[in-house]
């Protein structure tokens, strides 16, 4: 085999971070090469350099033996390199075909080619690799799996011989993953090469020929997959053993969050939640499992007062809060860790002290006689920084200067400091490194021990399984089943997440002595 792509001594610095430190990476023709590492190890940065989105501070790249200067994605495309990003780079209002030909010269310059011609050529490529998709369909109407197919098609249509896929399975069900893997194998068989970025050991073992492990921006090693064990890879990736989370037995009490037949629309006015009914009890964690985009965002918003349900009833600690505002829900004892923490959780150009009281600014002790009290604010913030081991210069620092993990810790600290009755935590560990992830998970369990009702929304199946006392599976806005993490089989869960099976293992509520022990939810009309 010959080296198709060779990256030598690649170094990339960002302010305060050394993202890639003299990284060597070699892709051979006809292989699936996995790039393994935990969040923040520098995998995506390295591939963005290969795709021309970043320029390396040091190092050289050879493509087919020749030194290559890749200033932009345009150059990369010319060299036959294509990339499917983790966040899809498709224009939602454009059709599939428009997305595919975007940026390419047409045969009728300066005019666009006829739709028929383009569709025909797309059909040829999609038939060759089994990537079926309707070229005239607007992208926003496609499922996540279909959008991924469009991305792959787009790269192939541009004549890519090297395909980079960044965490391609993060948004797929286990079944869709299988289908993706089949496509990748077909690609390799037809002579193309694939770079597969992942932090999941199982899929790396399953699909790759070789694997390169990155940690803290450095290469830990490269090996043929068949020569190395999962345990060895895990050690290389993490550098230390991850402590399994100890989970004391649950002691659930009465229901705190109760949803009855909740319906809601998304921003486009399409039904997003369809008759969702569920209960979260004091002292338990209810996990919401599901593939991204099945109504989790809308569920989070309805629960926290950011979206009005069109139908149904929502009770918090017995109080009807169906039409309550976010502020009223805060007052009623709800805390919220938002999925998109940069957009919702923090105000980047206000200080940590000011951020540490967001949502509590009008209340004592932070406001007395109509005046804000900075001393109280700063004291509160210092306590949180100390207690939660937040790496920050101090309460006067601006929130925008915090790293992702520390920002999340501050949000967590702020929300927990309100001693809530119920906590809605959405994707609480997304993008965090292993240390911060462990910390956040332990804190969520602490809240459960304290008697808080925790609703955990996560697309990380492993996280749901590790933390939840009960798991509700959401699919296309419906709760399609309620399962016990102790007795669940991943295959079944996957099928439920894909909408193929409903209510596999109906779980009775764990209500030891609840006064109104009505059987639980999870059923569609």
């Amino acid at each position, binding site marked *: 085999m010959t080296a198709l792509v060779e990256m030598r001594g690649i170094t990339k610095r960002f302010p305060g971070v050394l993202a890639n430190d003299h990284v060597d990476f070699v892709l051979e023709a006809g292989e699936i090469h996995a790039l393994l590492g935990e969040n923040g190890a520098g995998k995506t940065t390295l591939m963005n350099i290969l795709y021309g989105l970043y320029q390396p501070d040091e190092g050289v790249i050879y493509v087919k033996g020749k030194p290559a200067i890749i200033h932009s994605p345009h150059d990369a495309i010319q060299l036959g390199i294509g990339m499917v990003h983790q966040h899809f780079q498709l224009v939602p209002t454009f059709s599939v075909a428009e997305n595919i030909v975007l940026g390419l010269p047409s045969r009728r310059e300066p005019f666009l080619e006829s739709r028929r011609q383009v569709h025909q050529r797309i059909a040829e490529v999609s038939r060759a690799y089994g990537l079926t998709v309707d070229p005239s369909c607007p992208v926003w109407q496609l499922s996540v799996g279909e959008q991924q197919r469009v991305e792959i098609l787009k790269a192939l249509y541009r004549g890519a011989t090297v395909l980079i896929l960044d965490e391609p399975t993060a948004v797929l069900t286990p079944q869709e993953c299988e289908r993706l893997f089949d496509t990748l194998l077909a690609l390799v068989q037809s002579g193309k090469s694939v770079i597969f970025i992942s932090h999941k050991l199982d899929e790396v073992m399953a699909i790759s020929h070789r694997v390169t492990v990155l940690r803290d921006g450095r290469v830990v090693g490269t090996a043929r997959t068949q020569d190395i064990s999962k345990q060895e890879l895990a050690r290389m990736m993490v550098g230390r053993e991850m402590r399994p989370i100890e989970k004391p037995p649950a002691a659930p009490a009465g229901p705190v969050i109760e949803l009855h037949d909740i319906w809601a629309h998304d921003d486009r006015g399409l039904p997003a939640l369809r008759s969702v009914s569920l209960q979260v009890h004091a002292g338990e964690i209810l996990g919401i499992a599901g593939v991204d985009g099945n109504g989790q965002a809308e569920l989070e918003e309805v629960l926290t007062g950011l979206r009005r349900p069109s139908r149904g009833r929502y009770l918090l600690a017995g109080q009807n809060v169906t039409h309550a505002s976010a502020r009223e829900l805060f007052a009623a004892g709800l805390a919220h860790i938002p999925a998109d923490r940069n957009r*919702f959780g923090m*105000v980047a150009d206000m200080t940590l002290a000011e951020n540490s009281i967001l949502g509590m600014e009008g209340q004592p002790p932070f406001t007395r006689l109509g005046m804000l009290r900075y001393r109280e604010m700063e004291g509160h913030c210092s306590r949180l920084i100390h207690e939660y081991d937040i790496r920050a210069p101090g309460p006067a620092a601006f929130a925008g200067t915090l790293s992702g993990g520390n920002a999340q810790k501050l949000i967590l600290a702020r929300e927990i400091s309100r001693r809530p009755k119920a906590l809605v935590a959405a994707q609480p560990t997304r993008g965090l490194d292993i240390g911060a992830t462990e910390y956040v998970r332990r804190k969520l369990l602490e809240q459960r021990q304290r008697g808080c009702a925790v609703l955990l929304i996560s697309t990380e199946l492993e996280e749901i399984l590790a933390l939840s006392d009960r798991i509700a599976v959401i699919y296309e806005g419906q709760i399609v089943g309620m399962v016990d993490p102790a007795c669940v089989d991943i295959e079944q869960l996957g099928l439920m997440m894909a909408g193929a099976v409903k209510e596999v293992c109906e779980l009775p509520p764990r209500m030891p002595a609840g006064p109104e022990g009505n059987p639980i939810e999870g059923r569609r009309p």
Partner: protein
Amino acid sequence: MTQRAALSTTGQRPSTAMSLLLKGSPILAVILALLLGALIIAAVGVSPLAAYQAMVKGAFGSPRALTQASLRAVPLLLISLGLVLAFRSRIWNIGAEGQLYMGAWAAALFALSFPDLPPALMLMGLLLVGFAGGALWGLVPALLRAYLGANEIVTSLLLNYVAIFWVSYQVRLPMKDPTSFLPQSAVLPASASLPVLPGTRLHMGVILGLILVPAIAFILWKTPLGYRLRVVGSNPNAARFAGINVPLHIIIVMVISGGLAGIAGMIEVAGVHHRLIQDISPGFGFTAIVVALLGQLHPAGALLAAYFFASLVIGADSMQRIVGLPVALTEVIQALVVLFVLASEAFRRRVRRVVG
């Protein structure tokens, strides 16, 4: 960025070296704008030195000039203080000109309708009515934005023209002084004249402006309302997350900033012209936008910037008399000042990114 600079001056102590740099940049922008202005002056064949000399002398050379500049600064200051609140909440009120006209009209109407009120009541009434006139005019774009999602930049601006034509109509027909040939209202009763500081020509508006500077700073940094406005302006999503009623805050901000512009109009009527005239404002509402920006959206900064721009205009008058350069040059210099402020902020952001 501007928030950072501003915060640093109210004792919330962010890093000192950086905040010194930040405070320096508006001055640098002014210098650069004046230099570029000199180039333009030279290009039309006039000596920049002579032009600026005439300008400085006209603006600072006599007590009379200083008084004139102070009086000219009052409407700029009042309006820009309101705009500081608005822009910090990222509500782009560029309808202050119209709000000023409506405040002026309401005040004149009030004074002419109740000429027999005792002075104290008259002044209270003028203040209230002037505020209400501007506030109601500001409320229109606020409601359209808050509940119909209409772009307040466009609506507030278009309403300027409506207000200006409304005042033209009022002084041409219903409120016209029958004894005059000009389109203007009758002279207001003596009780509606703003009291003057003893020994000067400075009217009460100067005091009002000076009181409002710390008042607006207090609202911004010492009250929950100010906190919420800053959250709404910096991150509207976080505001929603924190349960802040965003439409309500849009309305509050537009009422305050419209009201302050209305008071500026009232002051022009009751303190300067003593009647309602057709062109009550030479574009105060627009200049105040530049004032607020040059002042780094800080009340104290607005005070300095208002006085600076007022002097610029007063100076330009004598520049026009002495070296014959059109006053419109001040508009060019104002625009250049903002552009340089913007550019220096952008460069600083870049430096910060590189330094880390």
